C-alpha cells in the first residue's frame, strides 16, 4: 500500500500552525490581568501569523490533496481576520475583569482563528465543516466567558443551541451534496450530478447553515443577546470575524455552483437578503441599547452583502470582498468605540447615555459619528462605495427588486444610525458616562486607524476594489 501523503504540504497552513502553537502555549500561561504574559504572547502570535500571509501571497499553496487551497482570497480573509483579532485584543484588555484576562481567553480566540483560517481555505465541504466547528466550539465558550453575568449565560446558551442546529443543517446539506454528486469537494457542485434532484435542497441547507455565522435569517436571533451578554471584546470579534469567514465560504460556494444548485442558491441568497434587511432595520429602529442596535444593524449589513452573491459574474465577487473590507473597518470601529466608552461599566450602554459626548470627548464623538455615517452609507466614507458597488452588481445581474428593497432599507437605517450622531452632537447633559481614559490607549489608537481607513476607502475606493478583485481572480473573471 503506497501512502498517499506526499501532498500534505504543511506549508499551506503556515499561519494556522503559528496560531495553533500560540494557542497551545497560551493554555499554560499563568497569571491574569496586567502582569500576565497572556496578551503579549497572543498579540505576538497573531502578528507572526500576519507576517506569514505575505509569504504565501500569490502562491496558491495547495495541501492535503486539494482539501486546503490557500489562494489569495483565503489570504485576504485571513489578514482581515487577524487584524480583527488584534483589535479585539485591544478591547479585551479593558473589557474583561482582571481575573478573567488570562491565557485561556486568548487561547480560545486563537483557536477560533485557526478554525476560520481552515474554513476560508477549504477546498472540501468536510473541511469547511471542520473549520466551522473549531470556530464554533471556541466561540461558544468565549460568549459565556463571564460566567457570573446572567445575560451572558443566556446569550451563550442561545448561541450554542442555534449554532448546533445550524451545524446540523449544514451537515445535512453536506450529506445531500454527497448523495447528489458522490463527492464532498467544492468543485463537485460544478460536476455533473448523478442525482441532480438533491442539489437544490443541498445548496439551500448549506447556505442556511452558514447563514448562522453571518447572522442572516433564519438563524439571526442570537445576535442581539450574544452581543449584549458576551464580553464586549468578544462581541467586537463575533460581529466581524465569523462573518468574513462565512462570506468567503459563501463566495466559493456561489462561485462553484451550477445548474439546479445554482438557482436554489440564488433563491436562498435573495430570501436571506430581503428577510435580513427587513428584520435588521425594523428591529434596530426600536432599540435603546447601543449594542443591540449595532447587533440588528449587523444583521442588516450582512443582508446588503448578500445581494452581491447571486451577482458574482457582474462584479459581485469584488463588490462583496470590498464590502467585507469596509465592513470590517466600520463595524470594528463602532464596536471598538463602544468598548472604549463602556469600559469598566456595568450594564449596557444606552444610546441616550451618549448625550453631550461631543462637548466632553470630541475625538470619540467624531470617531463614532464617522462609523455611523459609514454604516448608513453616506459619502465620503467607504460605506457608501461598499453599498454602491454591491447595488450596482445587483442591478446588472437583474436583481432590481432586491436592490430597491435595499435602498428603502438604507433610508430607514438613517433614522437609527444618525440618531446616535444627533444625540452626541445635539443633546446636552448625559451623566451616563464615566470619565474616559486620558492619553493614547491601545484601543484608542485602533479606533483612530479604523477612522482613517473608513474614510480612505471612501476617497480611494477604486484602489481597494482592485485589490479586492485581485484576491478573487477566478470569480471576478465572470464564472
Amino acid at each position, binding site marked *: *500500500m503506497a*501512502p498517499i*501523503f506526499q501532498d500534505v504540504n504543511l506549508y499551506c497552513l503556515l499561519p494556522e500552525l503559528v496560531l*495553533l502553537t500560540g494557542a*497551545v502555549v497560551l*493554555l*499554560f500561561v499563568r497569571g491574569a490581568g496586567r502582569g500576565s504574559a497572556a496578551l503579549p504572547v497572543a498579540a505576538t502570535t497573531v502578528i507572526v501569523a500576519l507576517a506569514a500571509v505575505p509569504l504565501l501571497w500569490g502562491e496558491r499553496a495547495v495541501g492535503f490533496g486539494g482539501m486546503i487551497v490557500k489562494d489569495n482570497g483565503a489570504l485576504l480573509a485571513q489578514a482581515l481576520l487577524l487584524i480583527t483579532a488584534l483589535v479585539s485584543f485591544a478591547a479585551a484588555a479593558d473589557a474583561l475583569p482582571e481575573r478573567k484576562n488570562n491565557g485561556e481567553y486568548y487561547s480560545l480566540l486563537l483557536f477560533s482563528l485557526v478554525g476560520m483560517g481552515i474554513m476560508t481555505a477549504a477546498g472540501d465541504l468536510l473541511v469547511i465543516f471542520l473549520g466551522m466547528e473549531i470556530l464554533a466550539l471556541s466561540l461558544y465558550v468565549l460568549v459565556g466567558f463571564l460566567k457570573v453575568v446572567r445575560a451572558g449565560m443566556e446569550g451563550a446558551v442561545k448561541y450554542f443551541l442555534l449554532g448546533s442546529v445550524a451545524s446540523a443543517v449544514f451537515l445535512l446539506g453536506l450529506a445531500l451534496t454527497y448523495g447528489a454528486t458522490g463527492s464532498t469537494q467544492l468543485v463537485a457542485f460544478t460536476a455533473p450530478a448523478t442525482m441532480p434532484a438533491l442539489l437544490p435542497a443541498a445548496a439551500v441547507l448549506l447556505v442556511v447553515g452558514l447563514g448562522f455565522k453571518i447572522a442572516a435569517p433564519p438563524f439571526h436571533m442570537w445576535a442581539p443577546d450574544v452581543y449584549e451578554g458576551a464580553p464586549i471584546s468578544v462581541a467586537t470579534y463575533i460581529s466581524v470575524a465569523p462573518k468574513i469567514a462565512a462570506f468567503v465560504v459563501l463566495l466559493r460556494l456561489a462561485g462553484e455552483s451550477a445548474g439546479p444548485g445554482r438557482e436554489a442558491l440564488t433563491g436562498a441568497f435573495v430570501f436571506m437578503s430581503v428577510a435580513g434587511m427587513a428584520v435588521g432595520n425594523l428591529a434596530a429602529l426600536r432599540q435603546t441599547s447601543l449594542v443591540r442596535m449595532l447587533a440588528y444593524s449587523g444583521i442588516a449589513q450582512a443582508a446588503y452583502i448578500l445581494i452581491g452573491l447571486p451577482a458574482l459574474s457582474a462584479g459581485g465577487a469584488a463588490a462583496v470582498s470590498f464590502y467585507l473590507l469596509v465592513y470590517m473597518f466600520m463595524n470594528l470601529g463602532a464596536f471598538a468605540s463602544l468598548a472604549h466608552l463602556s469600559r469598566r461599566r456595568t450594564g449596557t450602554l444606552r444610546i441616550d447615555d451618549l448625550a453631550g459626548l461631543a462637548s466632553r470627548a470630541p475625538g470619540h464623538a467624531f470617531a463614532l459619528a464617522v462609523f455611523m455615517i459609514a454604516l448608513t452609507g453616506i459619502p465620503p466614507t467607504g460605506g457608501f462605495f461598499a453599498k454602491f458597488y454591491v447595488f450596482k452588481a445587483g442591478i446588472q445581474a437583474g436583481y432590481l427588486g432586491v436592490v430597491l428593497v435595499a435602498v428603502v432599507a438604507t433610508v430607514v437605517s438613517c433614522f437609527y444610525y444618525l440618531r446616535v450622531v444627533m444625540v452626541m452632537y445635539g443633546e446636552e447633559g448625559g451623566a451616563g458616562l464615566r470619565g474616559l481614559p486620558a492619553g493614547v490607549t491601545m484601543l484608542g489608537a485602533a479606533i483612530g486607524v479604523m477612522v482613517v481607513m473608513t474614510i480612505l476607502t471612501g476617497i480611494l475606493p477604486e484602489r481597494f476594489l482592485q485589490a479586492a478583485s485581485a484576491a478573487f481572480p477566478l470569480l471576478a473573471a465572470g464564472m
Partner: protein
Amino acid sequence: MAGLSLVFYIGLVVATAVGIVAVSRFLGGKPLTAAKDTPYECGMPPVEMDNAVFPVRFYKTALLFVVFDVEIVFLFLWALVVRDLGWFGLVEIGVFIAILMAAFLFAWWKGDLRWE
C-alpha cells in the same frame, strides 16, 4: 457463516440472561413483607430520589474519556498500517498525541484530575 454463528451466539446469551431473570421471578415469588420493598438505608425512607445530585467531577471525567476514546479509535486504525506508513506515520501520530497531551496536561494543570 461466521455472521450467523455470531448472531446465534449473541441470541443465546441474551436468551439466557433474560431467561434466568424470568425463571427467578417465577420461582422466587413476591416478597413476604412490605418492609422488604424499602431501600437499604438508615432512618426514614427517602422521599424522592429524582433530583439526585452528583459531583461535577464525574462529568469532567466523562468528557475526558470521550476525548481519549475518540483518540483510540484513530490509534487502532493507525496501528494497523503503521508499518506501511513508516517514519511519516510516526511523526504524524507523534504530532497528534502531542496536541492531545497538551489538552490533557491543561486539564491536569487546571485540577480536573484531582479527586478529594
